């Protein structure tokens, strides 16, 4: 692509030890009036990862992001970005796309993006150059000198995103990046994000759409009611949740399912049955019994629990109310 120059792969400048996390929160608490928005939050976001902050609306995600970006200060706890407690000095290395992502309507797109670039320490000339090639790359090259107010919603979304990555930040922080996007832009955003990650950037995004996080993020932190519920690799989280559900289709005598030493619960689903194994029971043992019983098996599948199921389970376990869940489901649908 002609415009590849501005997105060229760049080594992450190393400040502090290489293995220091991109973001490190310890015991962060923030209260507004009587309400606690974030309670005693520890967070470690490794460099180069795509990290999802998930949880229902009002869980404290935006507050957490604002604390990381030093827009608001925590009441307690410490924040390190790239190993430095002085987030201020890291500002030019960070790009932030808040949930409210307006633009100055009266500026031209190129001028506006250049302004964002300048705020992030680029020289004006360089910023203008990058703005133009960036607009080119997302198909807005011919609109570079039009005022933002003439842009459609989709075009404005592209421009907003460009404004955040123009200075090639080493850390990208995105608050609900996909909410309100048209499907084409969702794909574009994901592609651009992955490009940034390949260039070595760390990406932290918040979303209340757990499915989005599940598809995109290697690691997630779940928060509900201002408190961390769970955090780690998506793979590990799922493994830890265990693969106890089996989808099973067969022809023949079903008596082998009468196995209280292995099975906790069975539910029929038309063409298949769903079997929940007892904790610690070996699915292979059940398969052997089925074969021995002469059943003709067409499907035997370990079902992964979804992040959503895990989240709801964990939040319930922790005794956290999730009044927002219903709203969440709607949004997900």
């Amino acid at each position, binding site marked *: 692509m002609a415009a590849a120059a501005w997105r060229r792969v760049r080594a992450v400048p190393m400040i502090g030890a290489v293995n220091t996390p991109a973001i490190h929160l310890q015991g962060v608490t923030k209260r507004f009036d009587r309400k606690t928005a974030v309670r005693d939050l520890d967070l470690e976001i490794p460099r180069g990862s795509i990290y999802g902050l998930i949880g229902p609306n009002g869980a404290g995600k935006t507050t957490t992001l604002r604390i990381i970006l030093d*827009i608001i200060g925590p009441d307690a706890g410490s924040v390190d970005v790239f190993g430095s407690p002085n987030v201020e000095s890291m*500002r030019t290395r*960070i790009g932030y796309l808040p949930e*409210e*992502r307006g*633009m100055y309507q009266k500026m031209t797109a190129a001028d506006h993006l250049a302004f964002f670039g300048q*705020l992030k320490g680029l020289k004006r000339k360089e910023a203008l150059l990058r703005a133009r090639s960036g607009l080119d790359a997302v198909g807005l090259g011919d609109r570079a000198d039009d005022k933002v107010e003439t842009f459609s919603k989709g075009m404005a979304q592209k421009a907003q995103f460009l*404004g955040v990555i123009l200075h090639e930040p080493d850390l990208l*922080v995105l608050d609900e990046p996909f909410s309100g996007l048209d499907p084409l832009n969702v794909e574009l955003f994901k592609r651009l994000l992955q490009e940034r990650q390949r260039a070595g950037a760390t990406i932290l995004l918040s979303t209340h759409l757990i499915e989005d996080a599940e598809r995109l993020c290697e690691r997630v932190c779940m928060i509900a009611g201002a408190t961390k519920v769970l955090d780690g690799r998506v793979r590990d989280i799922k493994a830890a949740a265990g693969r106890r559900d089996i989808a099973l289709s067969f022809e023949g005598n079903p008596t082998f399912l009468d196995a209280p030493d292995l099975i906790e619960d069975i539910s029929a689903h038309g063409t298949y049955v769903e079997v929940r194994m007892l904790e610690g029971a070996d699915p292979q043992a059940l398969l052997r019994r089925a074969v021995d019983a002469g059943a003709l098996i067409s499907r035997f599948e370990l079902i992964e629990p979804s992040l959503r199921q895990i989240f709801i389970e964990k939040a319930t376990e922790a005794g956290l109310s999730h009044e927002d869940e219903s709203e969440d489901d709607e949004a997900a649908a």
Partner: protein
Amino acid sequence: MNPFTPRVAAVIRREFVLRVKSKWFLLSTLGLPVLIVGLGVLSAFLAVRSATDAGEERRVIGVADPAGLIGDLLVEELLADSLDAVRAEDMEELAIDEARTRLSGSSYDLLMMIPRRDGRRSAEMPGATPDADEGEGDDERTTLLARASVPSVIEGSVRGALQRASVRARLRSIGVQSIDPGSLLQRTSFDVINVTESGEARSQDIYRALSFGIAFFFYFILLIYGQMIVRAILEEKQSDIVEIMVSSLRPWELMLGKIVGVGAVGIAQMAVWALVFALAAVYGLTAGASTLAEAGIDIASIPIPWGTLVLMFFFLVFGYLLYAGMFAGAGATISNEHDAQQVMLPITMLIILPFIATQGVIQSPNAGWGVILSLVPFFSPLVMPARLFATSVPVWQWLLSLVLLGVFVLGAAWVAGRIFRVGILMKGQRANLPQVLRWIRHG
């Protein structure tokens, strides 16, 4: 630490470029000189027109003087002033109400009604204001009835004629006939020249006019640009861009950028005005030098007080920073136009007050309260420049005034910064006073 980091410079640049390129800037920058020149031309035109009108439109003035007090003298004076005047004997016996109804049918355009001597203490002074305790009715007053509105030129002539006639009547009554009333009525004028400490002489009237002009101009600038600050901050909130901004720079940097950017627009505008007026002055004075000389004004004798101008510029800049800080703080507490009017009102009042005070200070620029007001921040940006022009202000006074103002500028910036830091991220409801006070205390 230099607060003008590249990112603050970027904000200033954006604010400046966008505003200077706007239609508003073009219209208001060119508009003011055009307006002033236009008003000058218009008033000159109107003056000439009404004079010609008065000459062209002959109006017949009837003088009804039933008691025969000064009627003949008045007619003489009116005729001497080249107005058509005649004794209106047919109207003499009428009361005013009747005369009014009959006027349209008469041959007079204007009718001067001189009341009878009855009830008058001194009949020789018609037209003079009657003593209040004489208890005369309305119909006893000298009245000019007119069919259409009377041009001010004619009204002036009639007034002058009546005054001369009245003086002549009085002189006649004491037996003096030979004195020209014009010589009695001649005004005596004198010039007031202030002599400054450096021995420089300057005409008081001109400097008073300049004082007022400068106070009005500062008042205007502070008001317009203060409101622009509020709009600039409101724009941040209304375009949902604030959060991106404060993730890139500190709130006070954003505030500083806005204030300096808008202020730079003001300086650019004034530079254009200064240039336009300088050109107009050079052109106008060269062209009109002889006219001015006739009027007794010697251009060369009006020194340009460069020192005062520079000092005044400082007062304007400091005043702007003081009020801009307050407007910025106010702007951070609101998120819509409607609330903007409400929070601006108290600050606007704070600018109007010194402007009103200035008018009094100009009259006696060295009176105690004038001196005090010119030292008090909030007042000093208007009052001190006015005094600087109206009189010679001791160095310690303007120096103290400037220092106090500077201290308040810093104080206002600090308070505004605290309000701004929290307020800029608030949306929806306007913050109330206790809330704002809490922000200031705790930041």
